[in-house]
């Protein structure tokens, strides 16, 4: 699949934003005071909204994006749009109440945390529902999205609390969170090795219905140039460098944040360092998400010569 920058930015950034919103809502310790009550939710909202706005950049008609709120009964994309807006509105009210009273309303926060997690789940389901892309069509896809989102949110929330608290104990849980999230991604990668169009029963023979006669090979494409389908769904560059890019993703997204979090925990350092861990994790996730798209094979490639297309 074509790895569109706007969609990579959307899934990573709004994932992190909703992760932080979930952590704030769930009542993670954060600095007190009006500045904290404004800037921390503003950062969370900014990440979530920047991601959502970026997702409209790949639309052919962004001015009609509001129409996407209408089909929540059948479409995951529509559901995600609706729930993200509801969650953000509730989060705005929560923030307003926090700024005015200095108190965080726990029941509303928990509701927002559930809304955030469900929004991320729905984002992932846009991809996981695709039978045409066997790599994505697994329950591990939403699990990875959710774990990365919550890990991003936890690192950032624990990091920002470093302004108020000297306790380094949250770094221990950060280590666990990073390890669990990447363990899930490792399982996803392992599964992707055994899932393919062929394993799902789709071959050039089933695509053409000519399998009962013999082995099928593409002799000629319908046209000499490229088309929308080959641009959008037949992307082979990612597969070529997949191994190297995985190492880069693991080094930035897993090894470095783990080292930082372990360091904070071992040396009882300030959890402010976890903000740095968050930034390198995000960098790693951009590479991971690029691979998520670039490595994925779409069934239509079978009409364009299969793996060699």
């Amino acid at each position, binding site marked *: *699949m074509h790895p569109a920058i706007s969609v990579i930015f959307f899934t990573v950034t709004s994932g992190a934003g909703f992760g932080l919103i979930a952590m704030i809502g769930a009542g993670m310790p954060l600095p007190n005071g009006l500045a904290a009550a404004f800037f921390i939710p503003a950062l969370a909202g900014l990440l979530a909204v920047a991601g959502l706005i970026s997702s409209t950049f*790949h*639309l*052919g*008609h*962004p001015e*009609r*994006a509001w*129409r*996407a709120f*209408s*089909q929540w*009964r*059948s*479409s*995951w*994309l*529509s559901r995600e*749009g609706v729930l993200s807006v509801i969650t953000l509105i509730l989060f705005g009210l929560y923030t307003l109440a926090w700024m005015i009273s200095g108190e965080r309303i726990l029941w509303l926060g928990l509701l927002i945390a559930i809304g955030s997690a469900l929004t991320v789940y729905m984002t992932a389901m*846009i991809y996981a*529902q*695709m*039978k*045409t*892309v066997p790599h994505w069509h697994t329950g591990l896809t939403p699990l990875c999205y959710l774990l990365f989102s919550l890990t991003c949110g936890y690192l950032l929330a624990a990091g920002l609390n470093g302004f108020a608290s000297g306790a380094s104990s949250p770094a221990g849980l950060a280590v666990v969170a990073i390890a669990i999230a990447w363990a899930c991604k490792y399982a996803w990668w392992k599964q992707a090795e055994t899932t393919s169009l062929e394993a*799902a*029963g*789709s071959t*050039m023979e*089933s*695509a*053409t*219905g*000519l399998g*009962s*006669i*013999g*082995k*099928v*090979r*593409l*002799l*000629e*494409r*319908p*046209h000499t*140039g*490229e*088309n*929308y*389908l080959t*641009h*959008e*769904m037949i992307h082979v560059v990612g597969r070529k460098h997949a191994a190297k890019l995985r190492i880069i993703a693991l080094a930035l997204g897993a090894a470095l944040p783990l080292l930082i979090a372990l360091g904070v925990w071992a040396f009882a350092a300030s959890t402010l360092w976890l903000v740095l861990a968050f930034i390198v994790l995000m960098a790693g996730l951009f590479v991971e998400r690029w691979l998520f798209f670039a490595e994925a094979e*779409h*069934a*239509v490639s079978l*009409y*364009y010569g299969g793996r060699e297309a």
Partner: protein
Amino acid sequence: MTSLPQTTDKALGLVIDLDTCVGCHACIINCKEWNTGGYGAPLADLDPYGTEPVGSFLNRIHTFEVSPDNAPASIVHFPKSCLHCADAPCVTVCPTGASYKRSEDGIVLVDESMCIGCGLCAWACPYGAREMDPVENVMKKCTLCVDRIYNENIPEEDRQPACVRTCPAGARHFGDFSDPASNVSKLVAERGGIDLMPEMGTAPVNKYLPPRPKTKPESASSATAEAVTEKPGGFLGWLDQALEKLG
């Protein structure tokens, strides 16, 4: 509404005869000609005379080579357009309601004024039946020439999809699959019409007729020329011997 209808009154679609198709691309040309001036936005081409031409088409012809175990390979021209699936995944993913399947005849259509051009329906389709128009930025797909088949302003023989009307080989047939007595239902029954990628669970309406088995020569050896075994005589015999001596 992007929920699919439980049932459709008719199931209009195409039968494509892979035995008969000669790969002339006439159906593509007539499809583009009719649909660029018909339903919805025109079908654009970018850089048509340049080095990287791209454009939107509702129908494309691939050419495959199929190699049986015990016979020479043969060429199969393979026209492909929307299969108007009964369980169309492109419809349910649509976030705006622009994509829909009609309950009266089963045609899958896009209301272009509601399409936001997100491209998700094209991802959901295993057949590559949907293409984004590069100029209008809305999703284009086969309409089964909905503006021809019911059009009382054109002669009756023209009230069928442009691709069917133009096919010089008679490889394309249009009809109602819900009627067992229709021309298309009979063709499918007689010739063993098949679904493309049935494992995707899309329940396509369009059916493909596989190529008829090729007549095979009586014995395998007669398929290739016999090796020359007899010794030539006369001048050729002398030449043969003389050249042999030269080593």
